[in-house]
């Protein structure tokens, strides 16, 4: 039998190590690196939100930029037009925007399309939203919305000042940790297991008496809300919401993170996002090199180690552990 509680504890330990690592960044790195680390933290959860669909529900989305961008623009609009609104409420509106986009799109698309067609539909929808943004004056057209202030949070007891980059960096780390925790709880809840089951055999789940459509839609909406939350958290950090964050290349980012790190593992997108950030930073002097490196790595992962980096390590470890007890069967010398 599976020891669920032990699994929970070990994941908590991993999360604590990760949090500690992110917490020391401002002490050991310059502001440029801290900025990068903040984006990586956001990307981790962005990747996880995509992986909830891919590994969880078995849906391939090539349009996650529409949620990310939707959340970012909602946040930007709220903070520019209603500066009095509590910051956390703004974040909730951002996430809600993503959930709404996901709901509308999901209700239409999930019934009609599957597989590659679904992927292309997400791509088309997301590009549509990107185009609308670039043509709408209200949303700043190609220039985007600029000058978004960093917030202060009034709790009643004390005031949390997040106007400095470092303070907001810590807020990002905490917010992302909470989001990841909520996602973990969902994926390990009965509903999370059910969504997993739908991916593995949807006919069987239908004949357990569940609506496949309903649960796929649930996963889709949650994923959209989470991606939008990431976008909303990012906006005060970069202080700009530009149309590029709704462009389709952004949609491919979480795919990169997840597959590089390992789609089968909850922490895969985290490993991938950190790796991706490192490659991007390491090759920043030479334009084009980062794309080639990432592209080649991704290709290698897909062709040789579909489990990604974590899947590969796990496989190696299992092999090693098995060795002393049951050696691999020797190949028979005499072949017929």
């Amino acid at each position, binding site marked *: *039998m*599976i020891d*669920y*509680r032990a699994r*929970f504890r070990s994941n908590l330990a991993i999360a604590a190590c990760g949090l500690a690592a992110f917490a020391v960044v401002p002490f050991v790195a310059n502001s440029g690196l801290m900025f990068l680390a903040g984006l990586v933290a956001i990307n981790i959860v962005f990747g996880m939100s995509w992986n909830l669909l891919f590994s969880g529900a078995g849906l391939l989305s090539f349009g996650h930029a529409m949620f990310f961008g939707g959340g970012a623009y909602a946040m930007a609009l709220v903070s520019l037009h209603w500066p009095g609104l509590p910051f956390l409420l703004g974040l909730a509106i951002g996430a809600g925007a993503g959930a709404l986009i996901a709901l509308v799109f999901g209700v239409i698309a999930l019934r009609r399309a599957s597989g590659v067609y679904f992927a292309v539909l997400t791509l088309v929808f997301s590009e549509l939203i990107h185009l609308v943004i670039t043509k709408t004056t209200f949303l700043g057209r190609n220039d985007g919305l600029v000058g978004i202030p960093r917030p202060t949070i009034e709790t009643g007891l004390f005031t949390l000042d997040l106007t400095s980059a470092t303070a907001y960096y810590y807020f990002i780390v905490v917010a992302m940790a909470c989001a990841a925790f*909520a996602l*973990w*709880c*969902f994926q*390990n*809840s*009965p*509903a*999370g*297991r*059910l969504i*997993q*089951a739908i991916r*593995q*055999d949807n*006919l*069987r*789940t*239908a*004949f*357990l*008496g*569940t*609506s*496949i459509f309903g649960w796929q839609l*649930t996963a889709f909406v949650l994923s959209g809300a989470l991606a939008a939350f990431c976008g909303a958290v990012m906006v005060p950090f970069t202080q700009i919401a530009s149309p590029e964050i709704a462009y389709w290349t952004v949609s491919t980012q979480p795919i990169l993170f997840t597959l590089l790190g390992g789609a089968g593992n909850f922490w895969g997108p985290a490993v991938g996002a950190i790796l991706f950030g490192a490659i991007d930073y390491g090759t920043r002097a030479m334009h084009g090199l980062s794309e080639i490196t990432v592209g080649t790595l991704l290709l290698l992962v897909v062709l040789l180690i579909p489990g990604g980096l974590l899947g590969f390590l796990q496989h190696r470890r299992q092999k090693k552990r098995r060795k002393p007890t049951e050696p691999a069967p020797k190949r028979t010398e005499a072949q017929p």
Partner: protein
Amino acid sequence: MTAILEARGLTKAYGSVRVLEDVDFDLQDGEAHVVIGPNGAGKTTLFRCLSGETRINGGTIRFAGEDVSGLTGAQRVKRGIGRTFQVARIFPSMSAFENLIVAIETRERTHQGLRFTFGYIAPRRAVVAEAERLVTELGLEDTVDDVAGTLSHGDKKRLELAMCLALKPRLLMLDEPTAGMSPSDRAEAVRLITRVRDSYGLSLLLTEHDMEVVFGLATRLTVLHHGEIIASGQPEAVRADPRVREVYLGQH
């Protein structure tokens, strides 16, 4: 006895090919009703129509007095019709035990509300206990921790049966429950099915090829041929029916 499942004028066509033609079919509460017939007679199609896997082109299906013709398979499951598949359908990357957990939790989800989606980081004790009971009942002890996709053919079938039982159905539909098994496994499967039928008070609907299994289980037998029912009744009576002999022995 009352009919728990009643089908009237059932018609199903794939394109221009009519697979079922105006079929009337009754299943009494508590009986073990086996449908047999040569390959291509429409057994599987009848199964798919009754379970809701495919839509019918004409006729009505009533379950426990309620018209379920327009309901999806999932909705029929909620009303108490469970089913297995010819090739056992399970969740291959989960362990056998997790397969059971999913089945039990799915049955309970309507009572759980939002707690179902966030409330637990581990299955509840009651769920685990129920899964353990199913494991013992169906003799899955040796394989509970194995990844379900790696189980043997027979174990997969037993696991699927256990998952269906977890749904607490009134009517269980078994599609070729012993397909691909060795003779000794078949006898074991017959004993198992008889046992769960008694202990759960199930009505059974089966399709089956193997005659020993058929006569070992059936309390009622229906013969399907070219999409029509040519005989239905007590197994011994059906066995003696001249039309059935004609179909099976090919005396035209």
